[in-house]
């Protein structure tokens, strides 16, 4: 039997003296979390197959660090190229000239539909479709040409494949950001005599960044992890480097943990960078 709560208070009552309510479900949730955490930690520490000493030995192995460097390099290149093409595609989709808008929309539809893994393999095998890459007048004479297989290394195939994929996603993110900027802002910019480009660069884009940064941050993070796909075209990224080692030593799990640890470190750093950018572009909004 519970005591009926009393709501008629004596005169001079002050709610500042109230005690917090006891919330039993919170206690239950807290205990469940603690038990799970303890169980997981116990599993990590007591299971000898994690081979923690092996993890420690390979964490700073030169080959692993080289692979990490390659993953980072690829991420940065694709991030930059993908963002530039993404902005251009978004601007194109919002263009008043219909053929350009349609072409950009068509690009986005196509390259969002193709799995990046498929693209990587395709670009790596471009030499089959096009033995030499020509430079010349369309339908006219060719000035120079290069053999495709010497131009398309695994790095160029990776950059092309991932950039085309990334640009399509960035285009949609940037477009959403631009559409989120109030139309009155563009009116005001044009009314003051800004050209279309000045109003886009000075007024619309900086305000769109507030909407663009959070999803673009997630996109970059998934791109970093997406670079692990390039191991299929024998490019020595982080995942491929640990694969090379465990194919020799058979220490599969510890080496996957090494890769895992590095991905975690880099993604955490990216998340921190994203938060700073959000704060930067959020100013003036609140």
């Amino acid at each position, binding site marked *: 039997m519970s005591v009926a709560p009393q709501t008629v208070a004596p005169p001079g009552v002050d709610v500042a003296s109230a005690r917090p309510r006891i919330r039993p479900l919170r206690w239950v949730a807290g205990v469940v979390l603690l038990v799970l955490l303890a169980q997981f930690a116990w599993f990590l520490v007591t299971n000898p197959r994690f081979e923690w000493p092996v993890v420690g030995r390979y964490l700073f192995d030169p080959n692993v660090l080289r692979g990490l460097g390659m993953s980072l390099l690829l991420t940065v290149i694709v991030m930059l190229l993908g963002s530039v093409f993404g902005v251009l595609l978004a601007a194109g989709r919002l263009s008043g000239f219909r053929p350009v808008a349609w072409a950009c929309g068509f690009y986005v539809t196509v390259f969002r539909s193709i799995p990046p893994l498929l693209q990587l393999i395709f670009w790596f095998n471009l030499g089959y479709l096009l033995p030499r890459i020509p430079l010349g007048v369309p339908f006219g004479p060719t000035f120079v040409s290069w053999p495709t297989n010497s131009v398309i290394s695994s790095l160029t195939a990776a950059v092309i494949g991932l950039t085309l994929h990334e640009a399509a996603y960035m285009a949609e993110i940037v477009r959403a950001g631009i559409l989120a900027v*109030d139309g*009155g*802002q563009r*009116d*005001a*910019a*044009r*009314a*003051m*005599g*800004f*050209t*279309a480009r*000045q109003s886009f660069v*000075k*007024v619309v884009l*900086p*305000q769109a960044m507030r909407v663009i940064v959070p999803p673009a941050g997630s996109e970059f993070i998934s791109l970093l992890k997406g670079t692990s796909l390039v191991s299929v075209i024998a490019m020595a990224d982080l995942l491929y480097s640990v694969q090379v080692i465990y194919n020799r030593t058979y220490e599969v799990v510890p080496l996957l943990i090494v890769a895992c640890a590095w991905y975690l470190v880099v993604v955490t750093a990216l998340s921190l960078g994203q938060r700073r950018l959000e704060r930067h*572009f959020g*100013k*003036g*909004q*609140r």
Partner: protein
Amino acid sequence: MSDTPVLRIRDVRKRFGDHVALDGVSLDVHEGEVVTVIGPSGSGKSTLARCVHQLESIDGGAMHLDGELLGYEFHRGHLRPLPDRRVAAQRGRMGMVFQQFNLFPHWSVLRNVIEAQVLVHGRRPEDAREEALRLLQRVGLADKADAHPRTLSGGQQQRVAIARALATNPRIMLFDEPTSALDPELVDEVLSVVLDLARGGMTMIIVTHEMSFAREVADRCVFMEKGQIVETGTPEEIFDNPASPRLRAFLSRFSGRAAQISDERLLKEETTS
């Protein structure tokens, strides 16, 4: 008063799909003249302001600023639209104040007033800054120069917007319902700035719902309905002696409400003094 009007609007037509927004509007605005435009909502008066500023294209007719055709040029005997850069330069010679202020929220108040001077008119940043501070002083907001627009009241934001529009020395100022988005008690601070400009000899077109203000500030008043100018004349002719039944009907609908507002203001002034 010179012979060439600052702004000449001739038989301008504009439609949005099936809706005819402007149905052959003609209007001349001379140097130093203040023209107020009144009319029911949907009568095309805001569209007129937007078309003059080339924020909307027009379907027919012509507009001239100081005798120069707006938005088009002759090329080998044919008319063709101007390139974006030249249209932008023409817009830079006019000032526009919007109903929703439309200040740039990512810039400080001061930078809002500086930027067009530097970007569009190529002034030196130091000179632009000096001019901006002078203009902010003129609208009574010199102390808010470093504030961000979002921290200001609606009335203050609109005064900054006026300073921003003035910063490029416009030949003519266009006001598109400058007080319609304001709380009633903030309307007067904006109107007094506009009145001050009118007394200073600025050429202006003011689209407004504030009838007593439209009458007080105007040299000439224009009544629009259904995309046409129904009647134009001195404030006395329009408000005391409306010729057309449509204007009479419009004013009678308005007089009740306008009287009520000014009564409230009187009441407030009495209680505060």
